[in-house]
């Protein structure tokens, strides 16, 4: 249930944004799951439903979840590569799930072997839009 902590951050950030924008009603929030962190959608959605009770501002908010493929760019050789095909053990995948930056410890550029790559897309959890009534 480590997803719970991130779900809480999403619901809190959405409610805070609605407050800043002076929304009368918070309707919909777009949540992006980066492929690298491999968040469990079912657990995350369950956590959001539980957390909704603590955040009345999000009582009617729909959370639309989309997935974003991970994309990497090597700083050493400029090679661009996806997550698919990179070797990692089950434990290593779990560590990357908790802290995506551990990718630099366990993954390498498939072309030159460098751990010095940029996570250009699909790192972790982010919010892509927040809709509400003013």
């Amino acid at each position, binding site marked *: *249930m*480590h997803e*719970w*902590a*991130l779900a*809480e*951050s*999403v619901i*809190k*950030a*959405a409610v*805070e*944004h609605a407050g800043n924008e002076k929304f009368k009603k918070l309707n919909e929030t*777009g949540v992006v799951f980066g492929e690298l962190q491999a968040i469990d959608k079912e657990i995350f959605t369950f956590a959001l439903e539980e957390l909704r009770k603590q955040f009345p501002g999000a009582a009617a908010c729909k959370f639309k979840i989309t997935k974003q493929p991970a994309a990497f760019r090597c*700083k050493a050789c400029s090679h661009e590569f996806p997550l698919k095909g990179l070797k990692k053990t089950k*434990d*290593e995948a779990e*560590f990357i799930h*908790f*802290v*995506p*930056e*551990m990718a*630099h*410890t*366990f993954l390498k550029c498939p072309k030159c072997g460098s*751990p*010095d790559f940029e*996570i250009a897309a699909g*790192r*972790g*959890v*982010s*919010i*892509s*839009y*927040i809709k509400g009534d003013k």
Partner: protein
Amino acid sequence: MNLDPRPSVIDERLKNVRRIIAVTGWKGGIGKSVTACALALLLAKKGYKTGLFDLDFAGASDHLILGAKGLFPKEEKGLEPPLLEGIKFMSVVFFSENKAVPLRGANVSDAIIELLAITQWGDLDFLVLDMPPGINDAALDVMRFARKAEVLAVTTPSLIARDVLARSLELYRGLKVPVLGVVENMSEGGKAKGAAAVIRRDSGLEKALGRPAALLKTAFSADLGRALKPLGLS
């Protein structure tokens, strides 16, 4: 919009932490980690609920100093740090299998924000942060997210460490970050100008590393223990 939701929840994670002590020093090898670990042990021994967070990702060493083995956080609405000698302990080594963590600055920042957002410290009297050397992403993020952090600055009698220390203190003053005081480590004894506490060079310290009970019995810990009151930590 590309909004990072994680910072919104960091205050929530730290709301029941009464004091945050950032053990800093802008030079490497001056004893920040041993000071941070011994400080956490001394506070826990006094009965304070204490946490220790090793933020030196590249040179994480608190697990070695405290002899942590076979520990891993518990997944419970985030991550609950495991208990080590009564201290709630968090370190990047739990996730790196003791391998190198080659991170650029922006990655360090991302990893710190992630860990601050998911770590459930619960109720603490003190959270000791073992800072990496220098003023970099970790230090700037602590000032950004842990706004109640108080600095405990470590230095040595060396001209080099003292000069860099003076610059750091000037910056903290400008940023209105409270500085508890300066600890002069590896001292030859006597009073150190501008330092609230002096820790003498302790030849027995190396042998006590990895054994918390032995570490508490060192002259190093005795000197640091005497400094708690003048530093306002007891």
